[in-house]
């Protein structure tokens, strides 16, 4: 299908992009286009103007800065998945990026576009939430930082305001004797997550869990951090039985959602299995150093 007509402007700097957005109410940012173009093509969305930021060099790249991982909004999923640094220190993020869509989508789709789209069944938000990512948002008024916990507000709803551009996401390292893992149960047709789980474990000197993190996507309208499960892991040895026990209350305070393919019950069940598995995998990797 073919989109309704729109205007197109190419920005060569962040300032130019913000200015273009400000000039035209309803204008949208175009990066890889892999979230937006399908909607436009099916005429499920219309835009007066697309502002193409693909040539804004300052928004690209995957780099480690003062120990933190900084992923530019224009970084391609493939670059994140293939990055040695990400695979080593932010394993769950690399794994999540390697699960986005398919190879063609990962060639072209951007991290910023994915995060800003706010699809609860997408892979990256779950991983970014795991790493307590801090998202940098630019507007005419300057830059502001939004924590991952505050960024996704509902299905396809984010903290990004009209005329704002997500420029990068920053994630601190997990520290020594720590590791992470990502598990996904994909929908057989779309490949989106029926359930996705990212987990991280940091061990103390005796091999017990000093800190655990679990982020769950796909099963609820917004990805969430499973606080009860995280707490239950502390102090235990992260073997599979202990992990299974720790995730019993994975959905504390959360309401799993169902759809035509998988009910809320089933999603919750799979999320527990996968959370336990991801925790155990992270624990084993942390122990292996």
């Amino acid at each position, binding site marked *: *299908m*073919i989109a*309704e*007509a729109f205007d197109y402007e190419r920005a060569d700097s962040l300032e130019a992009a913000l200015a273009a957005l400000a000039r035209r109410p309803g204008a949208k940012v175009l990066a890889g286009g892999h979230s937006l173009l399908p909607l436009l093509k*099916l*005429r499920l969305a219309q835009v007066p103007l697309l502002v193409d930021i693909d040539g804004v060099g300052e928004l690209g790249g995957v780099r480690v800065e003062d120990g933190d991982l900084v992923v530019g909004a224009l970084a391609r999923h493939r670059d994140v998945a293939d990055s040695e640094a990400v695979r080593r220190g932010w394993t769950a993020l690399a794994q999540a990026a390697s699960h986005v869509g398919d190879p063609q989508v990962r060639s072209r789709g951007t991290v910023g576009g994915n995060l800003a789209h706010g699809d609860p069944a997408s892979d990256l938000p779950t991983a970014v939430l795991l790493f307590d990512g801090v998202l940098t948002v630019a507007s005419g008024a300057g830059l502001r930082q939004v924590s991952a916990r505050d960024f996704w507000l509902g299905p396809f709803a984010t903290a990004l305001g009209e005329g704002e551009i997500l420029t990068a996401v920053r994630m601190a390292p997990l520290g020594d004797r720590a590791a992470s893992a990502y598990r996904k*149960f994909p*929908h*057989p*047709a*779309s490949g*989106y997550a029926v359930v996705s789980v990212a987990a991280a474990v940091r061990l103390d000197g005796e091999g017990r869990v000093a800190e655990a993190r679990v982020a769950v996507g796909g099963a609820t309208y917004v990805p969430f951090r499973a606080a009860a499960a995280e707490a239950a892991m502390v102090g235990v040895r992260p073997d599979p039985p202990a992990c299974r026990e720790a995730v*019993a209350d994975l959905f504390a305070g959360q309401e799993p959602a169902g759809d*035509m*393919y*998988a*009910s809320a*019950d*089933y999603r*919750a*069940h*799979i999320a*527990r*299995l996968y959370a336990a598995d991801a925790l155990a995998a992270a624990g084993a990797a942390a122990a292996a150093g």
Partner: protein
Amino acid sequence: MPTLFGTPVRRREDARLIRGEGLYTDDVRLPDMVYAAFVRSTHPSARIRVDASAARALPGVLAVFTADDVAGRVGDVPTAWLVPDSGLRTPPRPVLARDVVRYVGEPIAMVVARTRALAADAASAVNVAYEPLPHVTDARAALAPGAPQVHAGVPGNVLFTWHAGDREATDRAFAEAEVEVSLSIRNQRLVPAAMEPRTAVAAPTPEGGLTLWTTSQNPHIARFVLSGMLSLSEQRLRVVAPDVGGGFGSKIPVYPDEAMVAHAARVLGVPVKWTETRSEAFVATIHGRDQVQDVAMCGRRDGTITGIRVRATANMGAYLSLAAPGVPTILFGLIVPGAYRIGAVDVEVVGVATHTTPTDAYRGAGRPEATFLVERLVDTFARRIGMDAAEVRRRNFVPASAFPYATPTGLVYDSGDYAAAMDRALEAVGYEAMRRRQEDLRREGRYLGIGLSTYVEVCGLGPSKVAGAVGFQGGLWESATVRVHPSGKVAVIIGASPHGQGEETTFAQIVADALGAPFEDVEVVHGDTAATPMGWGTYGSRTTPVGGGAVSLAARRVADKARRLAAHLLEAAEEDVVVTDGRYHVAGAPARSLSFADVALQAHLAWRLPDGMEPGLEASAFYDPENFVFPFGCHACVVEVDRNTGEVRILRYVAVDDCGRIINPMIVDGQVHGGVAQGLGQALWEGAVYDESGQLVTASFLDYALPRARLMPHIETLHTETPSPHNPLGVKGVGETGTIAATPAVVNAVVDALAPLGVEHVDMPMTPERLWRILSRAQGRAPEEVRA
């Protein structure tokens, strides 16, 4: 002696396709070409008022057609399989909806504009006011008293009621039986989803005629039907099916769309192109299957099956598509006994109108629905009497000595050795060892299952006298011309229209063998009504058995003449001339010889022909087979059902197929692979779902799960070869066997895996959640408890 027959010759088709140099219909580009787009109903049932004024006023818009504009100018879309003795009603199907719409996707208007994008804009600008009417999408619900009526002329929504077999004898068999098993089966609706969407390009010719390029499996049928709808004489209508990107039955019917494209080109006097979008295809192109069945089987405790009873409700959709009535009747009911000698058979099918996309032939067409139920019943029967499923099959097979075998439904099976095929599969899969492994794993609480499917298929649709008897409004013969050019190059011109099945290669193999001509010199021409003799098309696994019969006969006629001429030129007796390595010579005296090209040249020069021989070297044949062909085989599938997630992992998939003599094993295996994938698709992933509001909710590849590389298992292919006596080549069709066999093989495997839990049947598609719920229930835990 044949030299190419039976060898894996590389495909002729590939040279262009791998370079991106194929010509699919959307690749046709003509000067001044304009683009069409359809406005389709967004409601399942409604009264409509159409206002096209805004669309007509848009720049670049050449025309908007509504029902008023085509009334009396484009005829209704016909139904062409008028199944007798069924009380068949064929409600009229206008090309554009008039006053009322009956399914989501029904065409209401067509716009034509200068570009694809402007056509899309104009379609969006056509205003349709809907006044919703009650709707019904489920066939059983449509039969309920007081259900919404789809057509005024179809009381109770019953389009036909069809019987096969002997009801009284079957009732007796059930009354006398020691054992009776029954199942309720939902053979769900599927979307054919050929990768190439339907497309049509119509161009006016200077003589007032039309050339129509279209994605058709049967361009001659398309011309026959469209010439009637458009009141255009056949010699003025040329239909070309160029490269066609898969069909699987969905490109057999003539749809409203192509007729409208042709009409627009005539009215506007310029070429018009329409390319279906995938979103459109999901609702506008036929669906397949969609039967609900109550089935039962009876027999004795010694394993003998004595009777089978089927009560089926077939959802035909809002209108009867071209071949639709024949699918859940003739193509379904007659093959219900399957590979088994079952004395009493009773089949009743009610065809029902609903507010859904019309259903028609999808790969297998009726035969998968029949094979599924009988294979499920045999397994259920075996489990009930505590006998191994393979053993029950063996005891009931039509024995190899019984062919030709007449079924109680009136078919005559040509040839077969069903036990041999099953033995081959059992051996390949290591059946006994696998059963032991199953026992071991069961003790560990794991669910391994072994499923068999021993199918027999009726295909190679023909002969024509049978077509007439079963109400098919056409012939079922095929045609071929073998034309030798003066240089010895050969054109094999066929009426059938292959689109991926490889007959450009296999037919060249047959002809090269017959003539002693180099394979490279033989070219197969098809798909253009102006260039090819009449033929009925490529579907029902008929092109090789029926079309190949015509090719074989025509080639033999040419070969006979070539040999006669060669004998004359060699001054030898005809019976002494043999062909060795492509050269004609006297047996035992290869020194003096002629190549096929030498003979061809002499035939055309005609300087030294024998008395009475006509010049030239060409022959045609119209081949009407004496009967159908009946491929058979056994597919064996080993699965493990994950006790935690309900996911099915296919550990082994072994396909043993007997399609008679094999012309090209590489191509045959490819057909099996693809067929199996579609069969697994139905078992595990695919299913078209309408929601309460009558919308198709699985209307894109994001929702409707086609088999993907990551999901598919490795498929092991094996063959037995039992020639068919029904055609000159001894071949049987192989295009549909995989699809027919695979679905029950997988479901039988999953049910076998879960049998210790008392599971007798699982609905399709067998999604992880469906199986997880079964596991949870059977293990005595509510799904809610499993959460904890």
